């Protein structure tokens, strides 16, 4: 099916199931421990042996030898795979910025150099400690600030230099009566998802099955074929349940590669879960950024010139963290400059993490806007509304599909009690607490990707099968809701089977495209099933009414089950017309914080997000997405930082004791409101994703609230007490 023009009125505009708060249909399986995750597939691979990864102890150099004799002789050990089994690095899979295994070259700390396989996990771990590697260590580059000045300009998505100019920024900025010119930094961050990378691998002849934690099943399948140099059709990837991904599981990682190699070598299923200390330096992270923002404005607050430059890094000098990603779509201003630079560093591989680019871009841009509001003496909500653009500011040839940012800000301000905010910072006290409020706008693009599914009618039940994943987001439920709505059956009459590469290829989970794309694919295949039902029973399926488990057509009525057993496959393709539009999701984020006037400790008091993301398919799970992202944003504002040791070249705090993420006590109150909007350009369901919108802006609202509380502006994230302690008011 092709989606070739904006959606008109359709069945979703009178929905009975879609748009209603619905408990996760997979919830009971999860809460009773019956949802099988990649590392616990006793049901399908009961005799799996345990693999334990060994990571490089140096950040750069060569592995000159790997003495495995003691490990091989340790109790329970079945075998060992070594990176030196391969003369060169194995090929990279989709999205990988460096090879995951193979060869003697060490490119980053904790790079996988071996995997010890034993009868039990404990035996494998004990034997892994007996491996004795020898290294020739060489110096590396680990300091973004040092590398940034000479970093080359990055390439944009189409391969052109990532340098966009509009009007004459330099002249407009020079002549602007009000100028903001500030530098912001964001640190390296870790996904820190609960389920680590994990894979159970088994071979039958030359066919490989991977039960693995992966967000993008089709990429996983093709990547593993590439890495192992085997035909794609010989790989099956299965991931029905995933314990969080946040973008870290978009691409295959060392667990999958090494489990597959070990299972082939040892002729036995092998499972590998990455131990927590390797989750930071072996796996990927969000790279740190340095961002410079210059804004020129009139004394009335109207922006005339806006420049956003970004410096980050990666192990291959490409695919940096682009903080400018949202700027072209946010504020009006005719004279613009945007540039993005990526340095090569020898830190571990950087890669996608929830709202790559935008999440940290907002941390800079939305604070710069707050600084501008103060400089012109305007309320920051009003300043944002004043600069609301009519066309897409950075790409004026595009139109906004449906944009209600102003409503988000106005409704948020009203709900939050923004009128009680004191514009003068450092003036509100509550006992020992300095109290402040902050606001930020949020923008995240809402892409769609082709998405296919199979729909089967089986004794009146509707079964949807697709390789779509549910990484905790609620995909099972929204797909079931879409199928129930389209086929006119109760939700309980729908079965959804996800995450198997034997099933039709979906959009997968990433970039907040999953919900919009996979439900559109489900709609497409259900329409195909309706036509098949019509054909079987002798009516035009497109003209029939499917409701309450019955079909009405030509003044006749059937039970859906009367059509017998049928199965069809279809996909939703999204047409070129969408390219004329900037399809975004929007939010107004508000935060109130307290800063302990003695210790400088920062504690969030409440957070509010008012979101505009089109039809909300399942308000219950959408809210979970947004408040979860707000927690992550709070972490990025106040505590999350991978500390770089610039001598040894690694992230030092590589466990969950050292890398602090917010705990319950840090998040006392959150509210999430969805505007009742529809975006006909996105898909027939008029529904956009929210999983990344929720992390775009709340951290800046927190940062602005901290400033409002103290009058001290901190531009280096995370905002920790040591950065303002010596400037807080005197005590005692």
């Amino acid at each position: 099916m092709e989606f070739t023009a904006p959606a008109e009125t359709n069945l979703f505009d009178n929905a009975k199931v879609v748009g209603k708060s619905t408990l996760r249909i997979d919830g009971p399986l999860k809460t009773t421990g019956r949802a099988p995750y990649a590392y616990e597939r006793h049901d399908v691979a009961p005799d799996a042996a345990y693999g334990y990864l060994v990571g490089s102890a140096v950040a750069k150099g060569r592995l000159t030898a790997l003495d495995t004799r003691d490990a091989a002789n340790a109790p329970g050990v079945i075998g060992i795979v070594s990176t030196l089994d391969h003369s060169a690095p194995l090929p990279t899979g989709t999205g990988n910025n460096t090879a995951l295994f193979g060869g003697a070259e060490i490119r980053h700390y904790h790079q996988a150099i071996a995997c010890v396989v034993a009868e039990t996990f404990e035996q494998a771990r004990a034997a892994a400690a007996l491996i004795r590697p020898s290294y020739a260590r060489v110096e590396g580059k680990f300091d973004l600030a040092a590398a940034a000045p000479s970093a080359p300009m990055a390439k944009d998505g189409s391969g052109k230099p990532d340098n966009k100019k509009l009007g004459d920024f330099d002249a407009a900025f020079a002549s602007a009566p009000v100028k903001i010119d500030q530098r912001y930094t964001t640190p390296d961050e870790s996904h820190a998802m609960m389920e680590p990378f994990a894979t159970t691998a088994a071979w039958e002849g030359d066919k490989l099955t991977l039960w693995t934690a992966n967000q993008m099943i089709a990429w996983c399948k093709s990547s593993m074929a590439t890495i192992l140099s085997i035909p794609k059709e010989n790989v099956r990837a299965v991931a029905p349940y995933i314990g969080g991904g946040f973008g870290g599981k978009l691409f295959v990682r060392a667990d999958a590669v090494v489990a597959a190699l070990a299972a082939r070598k040892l002729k036995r299923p092998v499972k590998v879960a990455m131990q927590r200390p390797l989750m930071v330096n072996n796996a990927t992270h969000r790279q740190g950024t340095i961002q410079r923002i210059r804004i020129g404005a009139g004394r009335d607050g109207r922006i005339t010139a806006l420049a956003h430059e970004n410096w980050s890094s990666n192990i291959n000098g490409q695919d940096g963290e682009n903080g400018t990603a949202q700027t072209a779509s946010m504020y009006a201003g005719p004279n613009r400059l945007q540039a993005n630079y990526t340095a090569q560093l020898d830190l571990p591989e950087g890669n996608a993490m929830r709202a790559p680019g935008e999440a940290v871009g907002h941390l800079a841009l939305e604070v710069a806007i707050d600084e501008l509001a103060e400089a012109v003496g305007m309320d920051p909500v009003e300043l944002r509304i004043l600069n609301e653009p009519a066309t897409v500011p950075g790409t004026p040839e595009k139109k906004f599909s449906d944009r209600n940012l102003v409503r988000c800000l106005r409704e948020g301000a009203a709900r939050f009690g923004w009128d009680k905010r004191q514009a003068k910072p450092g003036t509100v006290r509550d006992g020992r607490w300095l109290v402040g409020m902050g606001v930020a706008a949020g923008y995240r693009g809402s892409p769609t990707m082709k998405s296919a599914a199979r729909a089967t009618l089986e004794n009146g039940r509707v079964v949807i099968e697709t390789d779509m994943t549910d990484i905790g987001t609620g995909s099972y439920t929204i797909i079931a809701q879409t199928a129930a709505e389209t086929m006119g059956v109760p939700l309980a009459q729908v079965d959804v089977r996800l995450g198997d590469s034997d099933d039709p290829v979906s959009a997968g989970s990433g970039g907040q495209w999953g919900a919009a794309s996979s439900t559109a694919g489900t709609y497409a295949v259900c329409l195909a099933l309706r036509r098949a039902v019509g054909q079987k029973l002798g009516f035009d399926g497109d003209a029939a009414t499917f409701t309450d488990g019955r079909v009405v057509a030509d003044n006749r009525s059937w039970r859906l089950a009367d059509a017998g057993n049928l199965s069809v496959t279809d996909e939703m393709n999204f047409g070129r017309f969408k390219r004329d539009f900037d399809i975004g999701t929007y939010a107004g984020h508000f935060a109130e914080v307290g800063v302990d006037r003695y210790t400088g400790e920062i504690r969030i008091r409440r957070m509010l997000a008012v979101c505009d993301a089109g039809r909300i398919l399942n308000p219950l799970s959408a809210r979970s997405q947004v408040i979860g992202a707000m927690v992550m944003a709070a972490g990025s504002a106040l505590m999350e930082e991978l500390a770089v040791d610039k001598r040894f070249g690694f992230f030092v705090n590589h466990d969950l004791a050292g890398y602090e993420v917010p705990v319950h006590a840090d998040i006392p109150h959150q509210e999430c409101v969805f505007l009742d909007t529809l975006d006909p350009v996105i898909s027939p369901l008029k529904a956009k994703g929210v999983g990344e919108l929720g992390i775009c802006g709340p951290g800046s609202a927190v940062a602005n609230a901290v400033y409002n509380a103290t009058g001290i502006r901190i531009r280096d994230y995370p905002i920790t007490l040591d950065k303002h302690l010596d400037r807080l008011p005197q005590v005692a």
Partner: protein
Amino acid sequence: MKSSTYERARTPAEAAAAVGRQQGAKFLAGGTNLLDLMKLEIETPTHLVDIQDLGLDRIEKTKEGGLRIGAFVSNTALSADARVRRDYAVLTRAIQAGASGQLRNKATTAGNLLQRTRCPYFYDPNMPCNKRKPGSGCAAIGGYSRQLAVVGSSDKCIATYPGDMAQAMRVLDATVETVKADGATRAIPIADFHRLPGDQPEKDNVLEAGELITAVTLPKPIGGKHFYQKVRDRASYAFALVSVAAVIQRDGSGRVSFGGVAHKPWRVAEADAALSLGAKAAAERAFAGATPTEDNRYKITLAERALASVIDQAKA
């Protein structure tokens, strides 16, 4: 994790003898720290002597009017004890500021005193660390040291003792009672229990091989207002950047111990004596001779301001 043998001793003397007898043997109490370190092979005991059956799980009055806390009393039980809450509130507050409910259920009084540092370089076996591997060097010096010691450190080690409970015991002048492998007993003032790193950072405390903590005794209550202020980046489940354990009397005199700043609970007599002069005077004396890094210099300001908070609360 290396394999080790395991036994459950029946008496304290038997446990001490069992550990004293075998090179590399260790006591096992709650295991909340030791087992984690064994998985990383930072601790590699050859033999574990479990002390759960020794009857050391009671809190009793002493004839001096204080309390004797058995080595195996859990953090949860100790912090909830009505006598502790009433007479030694600083101890309840300190314990409840640490870890999580689940961990406090398992962690014991003796084990908590023996908690090892949380220096990230100690936790990474690839890194040089004089505490983990004597003579290998200290990666923390010149490295990521935001959370590490500012005072009492050496050029061999800048690790901190990370616990909360011991800070309270320090201001309460607790005594650590032990039995040695040969059956002899001794009482170690808490002030002398933890060591400074000096040239032997691998030694956290003064216990000898096979010496078992049997109890911690608290002297009779000293009255005053009791405080434990723990400062951290997140609101719970984090080690202290700085903590202040204090007991302050009506006249402004009192005692103060700082956590998160040194290799041991940091209490300085001159600082105690200056408490009534205010936070600045007391902190100046407590941190005289401090040698912070660029990363952790803030802790000295933070300690002073946290103490100011406590003093203001005491006046309120």
